[in-house]
């Protein structure tokens, strides 16, 4: 039976091409792999190989023809001894037509956020630093699950560059608390592989500034594989470490990555402020079957808070915490930004302005509902974060408010961020680059027209 040779697609974007030259003529015998024609695409001239065997029975499209559509018949192959006219031609295979989108809109499933249970009455609280709370979270989860391990630079024998892993080597040994060479790209990828292989790695970056060396593995390998595998293979891993500015360490060591990671579907992102949230969220992160970016802060490490002395205490992802209720303005922040937000609320109260202060705690999933409910009450909003101003978390919240509660807003939302500059070293300039309590107070007065 005769076989039609069709104009091939020779690049991802080719729709038509020029049949530049035939390298065979009618009557020639061709076998699979023989180059039979040269075809010009928009990018290059390509050799076109025969897939089937046979004799060139007829050349349908002459050489030099422009604008030959992909899948148009260009020649016919026949078997030895066949006459073209007497032979039925195998019908051209159907071309791929993408199916029309259905009428019903496709929307993402609503994320179900578990309720955060109230602490049982009479729960003992103990005062802990964020540093101790983070260590306890890891230790408790490592006791509970043999497949949880910690790796990173100086996490074991040095006891952690910022002493977060203090004591873990002694308790869990070198098999589970692992010092790595200084090789972020490599050990991040290795940990992703270990997660694919059934373990639950905690990867400590000495700071998130260094994780930029590893960001391909974090995003392309950890975040996307569940989707790319059609749900077969997830990546239960925690990447954690200090993020944002410390003090006087300048541009390369002072960046806030909150907005960067919050941008990426497949990642979860937490950025706690208090010790109890640091502990509860880190425990949730380690138990989560998805890759979690856990953004800590060096300045907060030494700060003390009350932490529930409760076995199995966790904090769910996607649930903001209202630190202070108020009626005149909503101040939304997270991480170290909460320091300025809370200080500002104290000062505003003295001026008779009642501020509601919301700690987002996790940036993906993001609890926009709590923010919306608050703004429906206060009608004004100020966001506070340390990151750069362009495409910040505050920008996103502003957009959500505009789309969902436009009519409730009595003033434009103000986004307070770090300044749009690499972090300077000089003390006075560094101070100027960071967001301050004064700026929060001023912004709250602006949106309340005081």
């Amino acid at each position, binding site marked *: 039976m005769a076989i039609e040779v069709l104009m091939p697609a020779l690049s991802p974007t080719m729709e038509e091409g020029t049949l530049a030259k035939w390298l065979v003529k009618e009557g020639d015998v061709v076998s699979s792999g023989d180059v039979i024609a040269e075809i010009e695409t928009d990018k290059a001239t390509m050799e076109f190989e025969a*897939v089937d065997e046979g004799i060139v029975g007829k050349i349908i499209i002459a050489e030099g023809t422009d604008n030959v559509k992909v899948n148009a018949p260009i020649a016919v192959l026949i078997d030895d001894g066949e006459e073209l006219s007497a032979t039925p031609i195998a019908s051209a295979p159907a071309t791929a037509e993408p199916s029309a989108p259905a009428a019903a809109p496709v929307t993402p499933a609503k994320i179900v956020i578990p309720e955060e249970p109230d602490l049982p009455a009479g729960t003992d609280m103990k005062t802990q630093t964020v540093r101790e709370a983070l260590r306890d979270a890891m230790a408790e989860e490592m006791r509970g699950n043999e497949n949880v391990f910690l790796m990173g630079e100086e996490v074991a024998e040095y006891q952690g560059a910022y002493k977060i892993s203090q004591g873990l080597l002694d308790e869990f040994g070198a098999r589970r608390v692992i010092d790595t*060479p200084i090789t972020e790209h*490599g050990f991040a*990828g*290795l940990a992703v*592989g*270990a997660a694919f292989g059934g373990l639950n790695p905690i990867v400590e970056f000495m700071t998130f500034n260094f994780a930029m060396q590893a960001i391909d593995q974090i995003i392309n390998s950890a975040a996307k594989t569940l989707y*790319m595998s059609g749900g077969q*293979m997830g990546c239960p891993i925690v990447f954690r470490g200090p993020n944002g500015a410390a003090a006087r360490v300048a541009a390369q060591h002072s960046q806030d990555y909150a907005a960067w990671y919050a941008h990426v579907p497949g990642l979860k992102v937490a950025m706690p402020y208090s010790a109890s949230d640091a502990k509860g969220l880190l425990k949730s992160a380690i138990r989560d079957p998805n890759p979690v970016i856990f953004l800590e802060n060096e300045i907060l490490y030494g700060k003390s808070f009350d932490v529930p002395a409760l076995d199995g205490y966790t904090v769910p992802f996607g649930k903001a915490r209202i630190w202070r209720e108020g009626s005149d303005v909503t101040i939304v922040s997270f991480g170290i930004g909460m320091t300025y937000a809370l200080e500002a609320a104290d000062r505003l109260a003295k001026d008779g302005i009642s501020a509601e202060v919301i700690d987002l705690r996790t940036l993906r999933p993001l609890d926009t509902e709590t923010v919306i409910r608050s703004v429906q009450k206060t009608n004004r909003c100020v966001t506070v974060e340390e990151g750069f101003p362009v495409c910040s978390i505050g920008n996103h919240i502003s957009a959500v408010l505009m789309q969902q509660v436009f009519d409730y807003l009595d003033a434009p939302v103000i986004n307070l961020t770090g300044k749009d500059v690499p972090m300077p070293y000089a003390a006075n300039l560094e101070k100027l680059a960071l967001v301050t309590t004064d700026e929060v107070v001023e912004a709250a007065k602006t949106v309340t027209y005081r």
Partner: protein
Amino acid sequence: MAARKTTKKPNISKQELLEYYREMLLIRRFEEKAGQLYGMGLIGGFCHLYIGQEAVVVGLEAAASEGDKRVTSYRDHGHMLACGMDPKGVMAELTGREGGYSKGKGGSMHMFSKEKHFYGGHGIVGAQVPIGAGLAFADKYLGNDRVTFTYFGDGAANQGQVYETYNMAELWTLPVIFVIENNQYAMGTSVSRSTKSPSLWERGAAYGIPGEEVDGMDVLAVKAAGEKAVAHCRAGKGPYILEVKTYRYRGHSMSDPAKYRTREEVQKVREQRDAIEHVRELLLTGKHATEDDLKAIDKDIKAIVNEAAEFSKTSPEPALSELYTDIYADA
């Protein structure tokens, strides 16, 4: 590449030879069909064919045991077929259909099978190398005796993360076999235009990793080297490097006009070094099979490939609701 030095008279069973012939032929015919479907617009995007390199995966799979893992780059169709994944599921993923291994959401470069211990299918050059070491890390941590085959090309061999991984793999004595599939061209850049240390396996010496060069057009040589590497890993001696010299007959991807090498160069390898022809010759000269026996196998393979192609055309596109599934696993 020099011509094969000796005609091997290996102590190998007819059954094994027939199996290798079958498996290599399946990959070649599958890839030819994929190329055809690409030309018809049924496969989109990037499509990197494995034609010419079949002996590498077939030889190494012959050295592997149940439970061993494998991970590779985007030129991955051969690896999937060789480890026993269903040609129908692979082809349907190429056409972006519901019946594909990733429900049509991964495509040619991103496919996985937990059941067959195939960990992808990775589209970023070199990224699978630390991942492979991590799979081996997990096996060592869990205390089993599995090994991981981590495949990458001569192009990826110049990525920094490969050497970061060598360092850690040897430091932690990980049971990982680094398989450098040296097909001599990183897209259009030949090895000699990308490095002055062309013996890629020898770079492992800087980290204390042993290795060797292997004739990748000889499935029996590949299998023998694979067995040696596996024994090294299972004995707890850490990683091993195999630089398998091979050749890709087709372009880097479907849209590669391949102007960086001559038609004659390709033709010469096809005629003198072809891995499938080699086994065919062994089968015929060793009187293990007749021309008719082999024709029957060819027919079988053609039927399997046609069935896969048919499935890949008739399997529906994924439901639109799949857009928003598999982003997060349930916590």
